[in-house]
């Protein structure tokens, strides 16, 4: 049982939770994630660690309401408990001084991107960050990103904040004027796919942090498997980060929708119950 010590709404659909987990706070590195479960009948879902405070013994996770479990999480208040939190899982991000890093985050993918940006900056790189979302209220962690980036480019689909356009438009603008040595992309699978198409065209080495379905998160089940370089890899133990040029994003997109029909059904019945209560 892990207590929620702080909660903040970034928007009506995106919530930040600071959770007591002293061991994880101490052991985690950039790129790591945790698995959480809400209630004795809950499912296990992976969430990336955005920040950690070793002294307070807390980790920060950022959740977007998309399904039953994420809504349950977002409904927790300060003082409530998360039934299970386990981690840190996955391999940490490979950090080194490469020169200029172009970091691209979309939606809540910006949360896992934050520690990566921080680590690359601290390793002596120039970091240019592109944050993208549908609209102004979905742009998160801008201030924190500015702390560790040499430049932050904001893109919104509707132009309500920053520049109007997709993440790739923002990237292209940077690529035109800068020599980029490495690109990191974290966000919805479809976004990462298009980011990778762009960087491949410009021959910029790219790392993608994948967010697949998982059950145990320790290599036991294989729910998270993806094809990388023609071979099946497990995101939980071989990843979550891979050479983006080698990732079969189309297969990943299909697998992410494995439970779409039952998820929609579960979501609707959950909403009904929730509205009644």
């Amino acid at each position, binding site marked *: 049982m892990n207590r929620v010590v702080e909660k903040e709404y970034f928007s009506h659909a995106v919530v930040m939770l600071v959770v007591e987990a002293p061991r994880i706070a101490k052991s985690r590195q950039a790129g790591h994630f945790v698995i959480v479960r809400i209630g004795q009948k809950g499912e296990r879902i992976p969430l990336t660690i955005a920040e950690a405070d070793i002294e307070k013994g807390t980790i920060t996770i950022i959740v977007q309401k998309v399904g039953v479990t994420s809504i349950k999480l977002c409904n927790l208040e300060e003082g409530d408990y998360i039934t299970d939190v386990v981690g840190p899982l996955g391999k940490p991000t490979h950090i080194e001084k490469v020169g200029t890093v172009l970091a691209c985050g979309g939606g809540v993918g910006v949360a896992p991107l934050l520690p990566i940006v921080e680590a690359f900056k601290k390793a002596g790189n120039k970091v240019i960050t592109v944050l993208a979302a549908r609209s102004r209220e979905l742009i998160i962690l801008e201030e924190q990103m500015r702390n560790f980036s040499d430049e932050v480019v904001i893109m919104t689909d509707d132009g309500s904040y920053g520049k109007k356009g997709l993440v790739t438009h923002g990237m292209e603008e940077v690529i035109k004027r800068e020599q980029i040595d490495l690109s990191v992309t974290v966000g919805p699978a479809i976004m990462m796919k298009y980011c990778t198409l762009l960087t491949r065209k410009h021959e910029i080495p790219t790392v993608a942090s994948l967010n697949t379905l998982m059950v145990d998160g320790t290599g036991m089940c294989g729910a998270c498997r993806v094809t990388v370089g023609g071979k099946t890899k497990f995101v939980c133990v071989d990843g979550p980060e891979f050479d983006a040029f080698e990732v079969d994003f189309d297969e990943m997109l299909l697998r992410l*929708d494995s*439970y779409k029909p039952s998820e929609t059904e579960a979501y609707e019945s959950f909403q009904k119950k929730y509205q009644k209560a």
Partner: protein
Amino acid sequence: MNEGLLEFLKKEREQEWRLELRSRVKNKERTLLERVHMPEQEADIRNKNFSEVNLGLSEEQAVLEASRCLDCPKPTCITGCPVGINIPKFIKKIEAGEYLEAASVLKETNALPAVCGRVCPQEVQCEQVCFYAQKLDKAPVAIGNLERFAADYERNSGNISVPKISGRNGIKVASIGSGPAGLAFAGDMAKMGYNVTVFEALHEIGGVLKYGIPEFRLPNQIVEKEIENLEKMGVKFVKNFIVGKTATVEDLQEEGFTAFLVGSGAGLPNFMHIPGENYIGIYSSNEYLTRINLMNAANPEFDTPVISGRNVAVIGGGNTAMDSVRTAKRLGAERAMIIYRRSIEEMPARVEEIKHAQEEGVEFLNLHNPVEYFADEKGTVKSMKVQKMELGEPDASGRRRPIPIEGSEYLIDVDTVVVSVGVSPNPLIPQSMEDLDVSAWGTINVDKENMQTSIPDLFAGGDIVRGGATVILAMGDGRKAAAAMDRYIKGKVRNILSLIKEFNTIGEILDFAR
């Protein structure tokens, strides 16, 4: 069997009550009795529910079966038991009607008798070397069924005895993993007075006993009870803790843990790497069973989903394959199929599991091998291409090698596939310890005599050493490791004491420490 043990068993056998029991019925009459059949749920009913298939022996049945045992002067059955249960003694206690006593005999050497009585492959262990099977060519004494009877009797009586604990020594030891190796280890170490903590990565204790073996073969509630017993013996359980990730072995050493057992299991499922294997609806058996057993996915009240279709193909011929296919049948599959590349004789699954599966309406497509999967536009598997096989010369495993028959391929409609072709060792612990000696297959190398790894404070047992074996072999490893760890720690303490003796003053000790 070693001399000392034989001598001990001989003395026990000469005790008054054993003599009296033997004199009651002549051996000739005992051997004329037929093996008592384990009552089970009707196949057509049980394949629609998750209740246990085997119902357990009644008292009368158990006493009758126990009276078949001849209480041999040289009980070979014990040599067939990986945890060395005093088999004739517990069986004779049943014959004498002292069922609680029988249970406590079991618990002298076995931390999980109710589990072992259900899932051990007795037919290739104790029962295989029973006098009846060896010399009389008759069905062996039903040792497993009797073990289950005694353990169940005790549990249902509410008089569960807690094994005696020797004086507590306060020395902290840990098991990494709460599966059968870890639990057997924890039981023995607690009995010897150690302060034992068991770390588990998942949110429930029990490892494969919980996530792997289905309810109809091993109800979770039985595992829970055995874990409660260990708690009563002082064993501490920590869930959601991955040693090597949440904290390292070094961190735990700093927190006072002296020695460790790695029993982290064979947690990495194998796939066949054939085209289409990542389509939706294709699971590893680990994932399929975990969703259903651990996460309760078949119950609509639980959040975890599972796709269990009308046409389910399970690839493989082991116990896990049988568990998966029988689960699929229970979840309403019209066709629940085993696809296995050799013939039924070569199947590694227990005979009982194969028989139960057949009775429940599982189809066996032996000498068949999948070669490719096909999906609809959403990426969901819809059919598979299989190839027929024939058997050639024996291979390294001694089983006849399956050879594909050219041109024999055909399509089978499937909407769920469960790949159950073995597991590889979980890499988390080996990855987190550079100095650990690991084989090319990823298993941890140990000294077979004492289960010690290349790092002296670290012992290992179960599937992380064996690569993929049985519950009881893992438990045997756990027990062996516990005995060896006890000797190792005592040796360490002795060394420290002898060092201290050489010092004359506290000052000398402090100088040495600096």
